[in-house]
């Protein structure tokens, strides 16, 4: 192996062993947007792929701003930790549209023991990306998934377009407040993705929790026609007072169990979306069209994801695209090999 490949292998080894310094460096790397970093990122994620796909339960937390997602994520992490689970957290906050800067991490790390190797929090800024996640969130989830038992991904909660979380999470938890009728409207209208689990947070008293839960259940019952189903599990929580957290952890685990068989497909779909997003970011719609459209790219990506990570596949697609651009226009006499994305896999 080359020294560079050795370094990547060492880093991956450190991540898999759950060493904080290695995890931190790996995350710094996958956040690096320089073109020169792409190959290394692809190599690292490839090295980590088996570990990342194997175990970790990825939980996405989404919901409107102000419902206490950060506090709930922290409380959830503590509860998981107390059950001996190792927890990684990706907390995404919005970037300022005006300056590009951001304020991150407010309360996310609340009350963790700094000497505890079993919990790791990385905050990411959206950096102007739509969809409630950041550019590096899928890669960061991948890295943390190789190092920890559970990965919590907390979205910005900017509103109704929080759909990307589905691509990184095995279980999507929608966090709402008691009496939050708006959320139901969004769900009914299909604006907000259908979650796997609902948490009614800030249920600070037993009475409030019960009322909020039964209100939601009643409302959900009326939406069965919209495909929501009354079976959607609802847990009342109070992150500040520690209520309902055990029930929530149990709920998340049983969802994960119930979808175990479908998990590889769900994760692959997420990685395909990630690949497409990377490619689109580099080459835009023209790139997509040149390689035969979205479906063609998705098919290619899906086929290759067995062995390689999305950044590497994106790089291959890029090469194919650039090769196409170099081809003579139709009607010219050149006879170069016409490579399609599918062909290149052979």
């Amino acid at each position, binding site marked *: 192996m080359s020294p560079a490949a050795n370094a990547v292998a060492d880093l991956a080894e450190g991540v898999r062993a759950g060493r904080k310094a290695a995890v931190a460096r790996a995350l710094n790397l996958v956040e*690096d947007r320089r073109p020169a970093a792409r190959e290394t990122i692809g190599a690292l994620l490839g090295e980590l792929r088996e570990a990342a796909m194997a175990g970790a339960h990825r939980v996405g937390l989404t919901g409107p701003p102000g419902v206490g997602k950060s506090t709930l994520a922290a409380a959830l992490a503590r509860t998981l930790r107390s059950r001996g689970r190792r927890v990684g957290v990706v907390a995404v906050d919005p970037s300022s549209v005006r300056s590009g800067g951001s*304020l*991150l991490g*407010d309360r996310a*790390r609340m009350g963790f023991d700094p*000497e505890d190797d079993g919990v790791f929090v990385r905050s990411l800024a959206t950096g102007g990306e739509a969809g409630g996640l950041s550019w590096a969130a899928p890669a960061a989830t991948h890295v943390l998934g190789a190092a920890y038992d559970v990965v919590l991904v907390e979205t910005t909660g900017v509103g109704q377009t929080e759909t990307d979380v589905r691509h990184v999470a095995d279980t999507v938890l929608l966090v709402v407040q008691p009496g939050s009728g708006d959320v139901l409207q969004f769900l009914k209208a299909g604006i907000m993705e259908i979650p796997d689990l609902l948490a009614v947070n800030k249920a600070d008293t037993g009475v409030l929790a019960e009322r909020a839960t039964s209100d939601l259940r009643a409302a959900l019952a009326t939406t069965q026609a919209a495909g929501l189903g009354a079976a959607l599990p609802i847990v009342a929580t109070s992150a500040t007072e520690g209520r309902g957290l055990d029930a929530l952890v149990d709920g998340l685990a049983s969802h994960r169990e119930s979808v175990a068989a479908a998990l590889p497909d769900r994760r692959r779909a997420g990685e395909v979306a990630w690949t497409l997003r990377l490619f689109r970011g580099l080459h835009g719609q023209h790139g997509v069209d040149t390689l035969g459209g979205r479906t063609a790219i998705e098919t290619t990506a899906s086929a290759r994801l067995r062995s390689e990570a999305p950044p590497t596949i994106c790089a291959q697609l890029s090469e194919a695209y650039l090769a196409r651009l170099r081809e003579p226009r139709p009607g010219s006499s050149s006879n170069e090999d016409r490579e399609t994305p599918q062909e290149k896999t052979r």
Partner: protein
Amino acid sequence: MADRPWIMRTYAGHSTAAASNALYRSNLSRGQTGLSVAFDLPTQTGYDADHPLSRGEVGKVGVPVSHLGDMRSLMEGLPLTEMNTSMTINATAMWLLALYVALAEERGDDISLLRGTVQNDIVKEYLSRGTYVFPPGPSIRLITDVIAFTTEKVPKWNPTNVCSYHLQEAGATPVQELAYALVTAIGVLDAAQARGDVPAERFAEVVGRISFFVNAGIRFVEEMCKLRAFALLWDKVCTERYGVEDPKLRRFRYGVQVNSLGLTEQQPENNIIRIVLEMLAVTLSKDARARAIQLPAWNEALGLPRPWDQQWSLRAQQILAFETDLLENADLFTGSEVVEAKTQRLMDDAWAEVERVLEKGGAVAAVESGYVKQALVESNAARLGRIEAGAQTVVGVNRYTEAVPSPLVADLDEAIMRVDPEVEKAQVAALERWRAERDAGAVESALAALKEAAGTEANLMAASIACAKAGVTTGEWAGTLREVFGEYRAPTGVGGAQVARSAGEKIDEVRRRLESVAETIGRRPKMLVGKPGLDGHSNGAEQIALKARDVGFDVVYEGIRLTPAQIVASALEEGVHLVGLSVLSGSHLELVPEVVRRMDEAGLKDVPVVVGGIIPDADAERLRAAGVARVYTPKDFALDTLMGELVDLVAERAG
């Protein structure tokens, strides 16, 4: 017609209970007429001197009082029934009052004769001062328990002192100061009423015991009007909300410490003039005159004041009260159209904000949602922006900056008070002795009784006094309640703060530099703003965090009261390019080098650490020698320049 002079105090306490006792006696011999006890941060936040978070803070900004023995030494030779003792204590107010009462009973004093104040206002701790411990619900319960106790047993005691002082220090405008203090008082009184410990027919007495602790800034005409407005609005609240009929029980009683936020490090001798002018705001108008005054010292922006500095401030009070003809006159402003119009406008605006907060569910709800904190952060950012832009004159800072060097600060290291670092070790040793010599069984059962009572609706004063007598320590009392009530972290207010984007060539240049650094290093520069130690004065950290975002940094800010280990863990996990620490308690030499050392150990040697605080030059030198990249003090008010330096620092180290 002549008015009696107000109570003159000096906010004092440091090192040990015995040293502070000597200081009180000497202050009293110089004509001071009341005590104002400053407690150190471990005492204020409910930790013993040997707790990891206490490191560097013991005896620093006040006196450590860990148990009844410390309280004995603190008040030795001072007759409790003749003193008027004001204690700046909040989250642990019940405990310090319990120690004081236990001491009085031990001395055979009639506790109904005790006079004084415990500050006991948690709302402004969440918003500004940062020495809160428990969540809002249990915190309010502790306050109402103290109210119920003193109403019955110590009727001349002020059980809570609603503070607008710290709101102004956090950047509040006069309207905000009025409104948020009033909603705080309403929140406490509503809670006390709901708890129902005091019979309804005696509730007017509870209202009558509410006192205030206010601030007075340099715009002294407006500030005087603010106090007139305060008195009128308080009367309205007492009458309309609580139906208090006796005008004496509706009187707006307040003590004051004038503004420290506006005191400057540049040409610090000018501060005594500011202090005197600010004192006029709370003395000129007889109808809105302070009952007690304590003044800051001229050199507070440099470090901790010495006894001489405090004496100078006391003399200013004495000259105003006893040399001038001020107290011979009736109210000077009755009938003044200017004063009345200003007062009315402040009242209208403040009442509108009071109603807004009440609609949001009152003071506690508006704290939990971050609404009030965010409003204060925004006001403070606007104030700093005006000073930086020169729209608000500060002599010696942004105007008339050329000056002959001041002989008062010729030797800067001698111009401030230094607490002997050995004090902490001595206090820890004394604490160990105390623990060894007391009756362990009595302590255990007193704490068990406290814990049990905390889980019920019982008033916790009795159990606390029993703990005090059994020899329980401050850390044990608070630790037991932490187990029952849990701990709280207040919203930082910076996340959602809307602050005008600063404009100008200089800042645009900083933004361009940052974008180019981001491209070079592949990631947007990321900065951790950390507040190590127990110091809760977060205004500086908040403003740096906001400004850093404004120039394009990704900023990680996790609030107050972090250990060096927590800060370094965050720096590592977050992958930051720069760590900025803010320390205002004077504990920088203990806390900052430890952060640097741990950064090295965590493999983060290349990540520069910068520090801001009230840091004397000699200390700055030592910090740089320990590996700190830059040291900033209050004179570095030009945040644009500062941000430019930080961007350069990231470029140098990461490039």
